[in-house]
């Protein structure tokens, strides 16, 4: 009975008696969720348009952040460095399309997935050779990102919000909004959606697959830059950051591999669920459940909706 009480009643009692902690946890979860959603967004962009499950998104985040910081270290002004980083991601997108996707066109998805592993290895090695393996500090203040915290009194205590987190939420929302408009309203966006629907049909109406692939990989690269800056500002820029790609996977399948809104909702569910679970139920199991809770949440949802919350319904025909 005691254990049932601890699982089903005690956490909610705690939530009721200390609302400030609850709000703080929810906020932490929201921020984590938004950042997961950003990475998941990079995955979704590429998956929608080319059917490639791009494992390299995590290392692209690190690579972008390292390029930015590395350039700044060599005396390039922050915003020029940012522009150059965008250029580097463009070069990377073109390179990936020419050297990786073209020879592998029409291969099964697991082969393409594997190829992105090759890309991951390549970027890890190349990144370490060029920028060195030691962690770096993100140039947050040079990019006019705020630091410090705002504290709110009330709710029987106080809630503190990091300014960088607020900035992260705003930047992420803006990016998602811009991407949504881009996908829905522009010519290229329509072409992207056509390619996502059917490669063959898109080709037959004169859409260039090569061009589209470069564009989506570039868009994913830009998302990676934003993610890299925000994650980097919260902790530090190191190769350990690439494991956040693994964190984005449950977000991705929870929302559905093909859905942009899914990536965002999935991110929020996982982020908030993870923090609440760790804070209120974690101590029961000895802590550290953050590492697998997200996957178990995703697994639970998938059993009931195999295509994720917002994914296209999987129709199978013989």
């Amino acid at each position: 009975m005691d254990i049932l009480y601890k699982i089903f009643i005690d956490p909610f009692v705690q939530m009721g008696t200390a609302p400030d902690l609850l709000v703080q946890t929810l906020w932490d979860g929201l921020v984590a969720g938004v950042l997961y959603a950003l990475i998941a967004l990079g995955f979704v962009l590429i998956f929608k348009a080319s059917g490639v499950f791009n494992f390299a998104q995590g290392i692209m985040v690190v690579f972008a952040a390292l390029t930015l910081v590395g350039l700044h270290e060599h005396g390039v002004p922050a915003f020029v460095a940012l522009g150059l980083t965008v250029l580097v991601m463009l070069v990377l997108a073109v390179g990936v399309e020419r050297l990786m996707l073209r020879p592998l066109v029409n291969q099964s998805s697991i082969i393409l997935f594997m190829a992105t592993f090759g890309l991951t290895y390549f970027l890890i090695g190349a990144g370490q050779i060029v920028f060195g393996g030691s962690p770096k500090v993100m140039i947050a203040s040079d990019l006019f990102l705020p630091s410090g915290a705002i504290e709110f009194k009330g709710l029987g205590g106080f809630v503190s919000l990091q300014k960088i987190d607020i900035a992260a939420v705003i930047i992420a929302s803006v990016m998602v909004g811009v991407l949504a408009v881009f996908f829905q309203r522009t010519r290229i966006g329509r072409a992207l959606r056509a390619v996502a629907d059917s490669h063959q049909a898109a080709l037959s109406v004169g859409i260039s697959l090569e061009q589209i692939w470069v564009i989506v990989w570039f868009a994913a690269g830009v998302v990676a830059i934003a993610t890299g800056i925000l994650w980097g500002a919260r902790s530090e820029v190191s190769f350990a950051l690439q494991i956040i790609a693994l964190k984005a996977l449950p977000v991705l399948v929870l929302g559905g591999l093909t859905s942009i809104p899914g990536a965002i909702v999935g991110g929020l569910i996982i982020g908030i669920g993870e923090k609440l679970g760790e804070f209120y139920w974690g101590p029961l199991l000895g802590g550290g459940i953050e590492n697998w809770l997200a996957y178990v949440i995703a697994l639970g949802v998938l059993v009931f909706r195999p295509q994720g919350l917002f994914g296209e319904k999987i129709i199978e025909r013989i």
Partner: protein
Amino acid sequence: MLYREVGQYKTSYAADMAIFPILQDRIGLAAILLIAFVVIPLVGHDFLLNTVMIPFLIFTLAAIGLNLLTGYTGLLSLGTGGFMGVGAYACLKLTTIFPHVNIVIWVLASGLFSAAVGVLFGLPSLRIKGFYLAVATLAAQFFLEWCFIRIPWLYNYSVSGAIEVPLRTLMGIPVTGPTATSLTRYLIVLSIVVVMTWVASNLVHGRIGRTWMAVRDMDLAAELVGIRLLRAKLLAFAVSSFYCGVAGAMMVFLWYGGAEAEVFAIDQSFLVLFMVIIGGLGTLTGSFFGAALIYILPIVLREIPAALGLPVHPSTVEQLTFVIVGVLIIVFLALEPNGLARLWQIGKQKLRVWPFPY
């Protein structure tokens, strides 16, 4: 010229359907076994046995396990590391509780535990497919990893939190533990891998293997022709995890001689997946080729600068290895998406018709 089946007539169905119908293949296999069992132990020194052969064979076994699941049944799994860990920890617990039973039996028996865990985490595969399933198996990977760290009972409450392999003997000869020679360990690993490869080969060429392949090619159609998906998929998970579990137990008991939970982290799962895909999905020979390429290539690459006398810093070599392996993965996939096993087949075919193009 030498490799030609002219004049080798088959008089029975069984002979015609043999796995190695050509005499030269059988001779080749016998030669490989001879080299593995006799020549390498005679000439091999500790470096070759410990750093190259034992890990290569262990990874091969893990790759065969994953290949049964991913290559033959079409279920993508990223939980290999976790399942290997279950094998290792099960073996430790078994040999602690029953210290007098032969350790080889426990290495094999620990696979059963891993098979049970595999079946449990395989259950969602009935509804979830493709990459969605891969992420679902990640739940197994991370959950198991967490268990290895957080449950002290699993590692016998040792202070370091690591598995400490006790000394166990087989007919008076130390097999595991610090005093076991690399030769004994090599021979045991080799025997287990050979026997289990033979079993796997019989499995995939028989009814069960055909069921799996039908499920892989299209599970809906397989169901319609009367294959029970539940059984087929769970059996694939069980057998695959069994192989991975044995590989994991061997990895700790016969190779490392002690290991922490990090050994069974997600990287291990990815490594084995590379081997399976580079080697060739749905081929047993491919598992050997894949393990050889992915495991031995970095070792060779690391040795090259030293051998050539180039003054390169070790960390640079490490990074260059990453770059080269990454590029090679993409190059191999572009050259032959069906893996090294397919290249091998093409080579054999060319040899058969040589000197004619076809």
